[in-house]
């Protein structure tokens, strides 16, 4: 059964994946609850592993929006990142440039605006790669082959460059996990996150 159930009016990518806007708005409402008094709070992990502070969680969510937007646009938005070192070793300490609630929320909004341009594209583009994801696909494949990862390169080639839908799904799956974490930490502090649901 195809999408003929829709009225035929011009539909956008955002109409085809309404969960994206809902998810981004939900995260923004939760992130706004991290005020100056909560910004530096870092949950204690009795096992000793390092955790994001609440402020770092907000900054990471903002950074990831830029990362995904950069993949779609084929642009390097890393100068917008708050993170300055993201070690690959699990449990290692990430470092961030100094941030504050206002700057993080601004970056969150700007990153959303970069994503929004794609949400406003015609629905037909939802399952197409962008020139940015095609470039990324080719360079990543080269990287895998150069590293002798032929099997992975072949599996990657089979799937092809990421479509707009795949990239947007990745964005919201990533962001939802961190929002769940942030919301939980805020609730443990007594913040009223119900209004952010």
């Amino acid at each position, binding site marked *: 059964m195809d*999408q003929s159930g*829709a009225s035929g009016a011009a539909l956008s990518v955002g109409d085809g994946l309404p969960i994206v806007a809902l998810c981004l708005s939900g995260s923004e409402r939760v992130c706004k609850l991290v005020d100056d008094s909560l910004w530096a709070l870092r949950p204690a992990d009795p*096992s000793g592993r390092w955790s*994001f502070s609440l402020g770092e969680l907000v900054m990471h969510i903002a950074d990831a929006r830029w990362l995904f937007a950069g993949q779609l646009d084929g642009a390097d938005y890393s100068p917008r990142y708050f993170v300055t070192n993201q070690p690959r070793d699990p449990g290692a300490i990430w470092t961030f440039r100094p941030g504050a609630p206002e700057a993080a929320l601004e970056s969150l909004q700007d990153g959303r605006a970069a994503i929004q341009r794609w949400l406003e594209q015609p629905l037909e583009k939802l399952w*197409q790669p962008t020139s940015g994801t095609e470039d990324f696909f080719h360079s990543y494949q080269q990287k895998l082959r150069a590293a002798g990862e032929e099997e992975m390169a072949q599996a990657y080639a*089979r799937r092809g460059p990421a479509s707009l839908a795949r990239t947007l799904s990745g964005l919201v799956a990533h962001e939802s996990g961190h929002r*769940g974490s942030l919301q*939980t930490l805020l609730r443990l*502090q007594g913040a009223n996150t119900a209004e952010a649901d």
Partner: protein
Amino acid sequence: MDSSMQASPAMTIGDQMPWVGMTLSYLEKIAALIPEDKLDWRPADPSGKWSFSLGEIAMHCADSRSMFARTLSGDASEEGYWMKYPEDDSGVWTRSREAANLQEILDSLVAGREALEAWLARPYNELLNTTPGTIAGFEKHLASLREAGKDTADAERRGPTTINRVLVAAACHEAGHRGALQTLLRQMGVNAGSE
């Protein structure tokens, strides 16, 4: 449907939406770490609001997997669900049945996943399709909007939910609860991964 979607008929929905499978696997991995003696542990919310226990988070995710799969198949049944949605403004969910142990909850996560996998295994050029289930749900939604005297124009413009919309919603919903579960486990000192 664009030409790129017709190029590889052997490709499945799951191949094109790898985040869905990854998200489901991630929750299964984290849920398996819940200590048996902490299944009923419930975080205290200083504001007094009710919270899921650790076991209930996993139960709710298992129920939701079934619910999203049933949305696609057009099955309105709530049979087998662990949790009942609050019937009042208290926000308190109740249990429809009790779990004997963590394994029983993990098994229900697997069963819910199998129901979703049936959709992930379909050819990927069906991603934008509606299903009899989503059409029936759409008609019901329109009827409820009309009954409430609300405008149906936007809903009609978008039409019935498509397979991709349901699967991405399932992944996002679950990722949020997994984030909560992982955070609570880490606070207890369980090795539930790092940033």
